[in-house]
């Protein structure tokens, strides 16, 4: 390989760094004694910083251009760089937040950190996929790591059960996705996403029978819905969120959502834009069901992790509102706005989700899991600052201004109204009202009720700092949402 070729392949630098870093970590961790595990921890943070720097560098060199590598299997564009950066941040937060929690439970082993990095690599591959095959490759790499992470606490029957469920259902959905991909391949003769887009455009123009393609699309959407976690493919979410150690729940509830969003963008928007009419209808149904099932079922939960699991389902339904509002009667004029809305939503959601689970980790101590609603009672008396942060998180999840969550909802609702889905927008706001109830209940528990025994652990300073930043950034984006929105728009425009 000549130097020139190596330079041409520079856009995969972040992936290479994460891969090498994960491998190095595996080796280093063998030599590290368990009481000095912090070395592995720092190494992982170093890998993340290096990857982030590489991503910024790639973006700086490429600018708004799209670069295809490895005969079109891999794409590097502004979207991929942005989403990767969000993933690094989420994984960074996962590391910092879960450190004390895992240490207390004897789970801060090399496996956690290594699997986390490999999962991150999977997500990065999904994000940069430009072929159905690469999508699948990344997806499986990520999923397998996550299955193992859920079972990290192998003595816990709950975790093992959750991992088993996750694995079986995950395998099933991967099967669905593969089946759909094979259909699309059969219809178009290619797995390459740009090629698929070109052929479907021809097919859509001609009068030929498209039912074969649409049949494949149904399976692709089903597989996608499972990975995003929207109803009626949501069954695994509550069990996995509940059963996994909270640190792992944080991982599952954050960065993989970004990767799943990327998967939707690559396969549906980049790959099958001419079937938009078909998949938009499917997504509309999924969105409505998710918002309804997620928000209504969440009310009945007394376990915080389960409640947040249902809230995820509802939020992903909201995110879909943006994705499904792009093409209006074959007209793609406002598509950029709609996809910007979805992208903005997913980023804001990840910030909220990381913060909420981070708070649970913060409040858990050795021998005590903060996972029931009652565990939050009277938090505003025992630690007013963190209660305030949780207040911001909850109001942001509920979509009340002036928090970032409001603008996320506003953006997707606006997209839906523009696309003429007025009924969907009305249903969405009514269901978000239902949702407001259970977020309010948490605020109520924290502020109106008296605390139970025992105060919160002080937590690591690094964690306190990051958690504060995490909460305040939602307020910052609530007061000045323009920054992030503009970035999202530029990224989508370059798509």
């Amino acid at each position, binding site marked *: 390989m000549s130097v020139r070729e190596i330079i041409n392949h520079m856009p995969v630098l972040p992936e290479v760094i994460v891969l090498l870093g994960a491998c190095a970590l595996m080796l280093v961790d063998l030599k590290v004694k368990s009481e000095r595990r912090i070395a592995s921890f720092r190494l992982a943070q170093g890998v993340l910083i290096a990857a982030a720097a590489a991503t910024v560098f790639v973006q700086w060199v490429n600018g708004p251009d799209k670069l295809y590598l490895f005969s079109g299997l891999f794409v590097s564009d502004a979207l991929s760089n942005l989403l990767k950066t969000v993933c690094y941040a989420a994984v960074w937060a996962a590391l910092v937040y879960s450190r004390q929690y895992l240490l207390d439970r004897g789970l801060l082993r090399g496996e956690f950190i290594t699997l986390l990095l490999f999962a991150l690599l999977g997500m990065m591959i999904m994000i940069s996929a430009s072929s159905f095959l690469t999508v699948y490759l990344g997806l499986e790499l990520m999923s397998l790591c996550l299955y193992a992470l859920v079972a990290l606490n192998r003595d816990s029957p709950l975790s093992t059960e959750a991992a088993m469920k996750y694995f079986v259902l995950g395998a099933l959905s991967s099967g669905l996705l593969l089946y759909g991909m094979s259909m699309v391949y059969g219809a178009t003769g290619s797995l390459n996403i740009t090629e698929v887009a070109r052929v479907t455009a021809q097919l859509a123009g001609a009068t030929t029978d498209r039912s074969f393609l649409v049949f494949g699309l149904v399976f692709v959407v089903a597989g996608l819905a499972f990975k995003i976690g929207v109803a009626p493919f949501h069954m695994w979410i509550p069990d996995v969120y509940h059963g996994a150690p909270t640190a792992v729940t944080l991982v599952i509830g954050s960065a993989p959502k970004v990767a799943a969003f990327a998967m939707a963008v690559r396969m549906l928007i980049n790959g099958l834009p001419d079937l938009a009419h078909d998949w938009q209808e499917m997504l509309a149904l999924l969105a409505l069901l998710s918002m309804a099932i997620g928000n209504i079922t969440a009310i009945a939960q007394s376990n915080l992790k389960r409640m947040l699991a249902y809230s995820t389902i509802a939020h992903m339904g909201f995110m879909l509102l943006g994705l499904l509002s792009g093409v209006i009667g074959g007209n793609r004029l406002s598509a950029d706005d709609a996809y910007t809305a979805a992208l903005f939503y997913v980023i804001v959601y990840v910030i909220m989700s990381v913060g909420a689970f981070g708070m649970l980790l913060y409040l858990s101590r050795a021998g005590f899991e903060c996972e029931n609603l009652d565990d939050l009672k009277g938090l505003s008396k025992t630690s007013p600052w963190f209660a305030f942060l949780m207040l911001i998180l909850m109001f942001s999840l509920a979509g009340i201004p002036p928090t970032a969550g409001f603008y996320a909802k506003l953006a997707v609702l606006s997209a839906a109204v523009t696309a003429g889905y007025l009924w969907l927008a009305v249903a969405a706001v009514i269901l978000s009202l239902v949702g407001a109830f259970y977020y*309010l209940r948490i605020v109520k528990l924290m502020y109106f009720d008296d605390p139970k025994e025992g105060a919160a652990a002080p937590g690591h300073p690094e964690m306190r700092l990051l958690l504060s930043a995490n909460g305040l950034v939602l307020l910052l984006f609530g007061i000045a949402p323009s920054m992030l929105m503009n970035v999202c728009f530029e990224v989508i425009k370059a798509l």
Partner: protein
Amino acid sequence: MVSVPLLSLSIWVPILAGVAVLAAGGEGNARNQKWIALGGAVLGFLVTLPLYTKFDLQSPGFQFTEREIWIERFNVYYHLGVDGISVLFVLLNSFITILVVIAGWSVVEKRVSQYYASFLVMSGMLNGVFASLDALLFYVFFEGTLIPMFIIIGVWGGPNRVYAAVKFFLYTLLGSLLMLVSMLYLYNKAGGSFAITDWHKLPLALDVQIWLFFGLLLAFAVKVPMWPVHTWLPDAHTEAPTGGSVVLAAILLKLGAYGFVRFTLPILPDASQKLSWLMIALSLIAIAYIGLVTLVQTDMKRLIAYSSVSHMGFCTLGFFLFNAYGVEGALVQMISHGFVSAALFLCIGVMYDRMHSRAIADYGGVVNTMPRFAALMMLFAMANAGLPATSGFVGEFMVIMGAMKKSYWLAFVAATTLILGASYTLWMYKRVIFGGVANEQVGKLKDLNWRETVVLTALAAATLFMGVYPVAFTEVMHASVNDLLRHVALPKL
């Protein structure tokens, strides 16, 4: 044109003061926190004064405007400005905030910093609601006020506070979410603009107007509150701490009525004309039926809460009469109600702090132990009943005049309030204040301390001044109200 951004100051001074109070530390530092809060509130009021003194009475348009791009993607501007309709509410709100801070001085014992911070932040956001000329900015402030109020009711409220707080929050959120969808629709129709003044000019078909009318109606009707969506109000008022009730009655209820004037009437004039019968009917039900309901209340706070619903019925009635008497009368009524209901809730607070009971039956003969208090409360009771020379009379009389122009029977039903209002207020006053000393506790009551005297006297002065010289208020409104009426008379189809 003044170079100082007065409206921004009126919004951000209280909010920053609230943050400062929070930053001032824990429970031990309560004294300093109170002084910071008072300083912030006073400063917040002072910066609003030039809005009145420098107000151009001849101009119907928006004054003291500020405009900065805020969210490019949605073409949202940080656009502030006041006209004759809104300027008085900014002043009223800043004035009431000072009183609330003083009133809570020795009463609030737990979590002092959070208490004052909530009120100050809310005060800033309420100013923002009245000053916004951009619908999304309006919405952000409108919804944002829910958070501090929710905390205020829930943390410092009465025994049933959680229920009341959640009910308050969800009720109002339901209304405002539908308003958001309506706003998004208008945003699209207006070609991607959230500017309220652009919406005023936007032509809309009648059926669209009617849909939007109902979309906005729920948001504003819940806030006012109009019959039959008023049921959250008695609960919220009864359970809220005194300061919370005061702000709720004096300012928060005005948001709904203000929404009608700022949004519904000018943006949807044809639907408003067409559905005015509905609004008038609902208002009359509020005035007459809720007036009767008020009569039978046994809890003083609940009684005043219901009387608020009845009085706010006058505001909605006045707006939908489409004549200058009606609209100006309604606006005067809103301000007057801000003074009077605030004062009555403070009076009840004064008694509650001493006796820890709101039941009328627990009182009697208070005049024997608290003569100064009885005298002041007398004035407010009279104002609530609409006695001439108090502010309560002016608004009601103007609205009844406006109604008379439309139909005799309309005026007749509206005028029943003069009887009902007098009955429930004075009857309550008689049972609580007059008669022999009812029980030992009443016998031990101490009269007003200087802080309470200051607060109630300030309100008494405002009530009397407005009753004797209402021109000071109406002259500000004239130009804007006439402009509004001209605008509403033109069809937009």
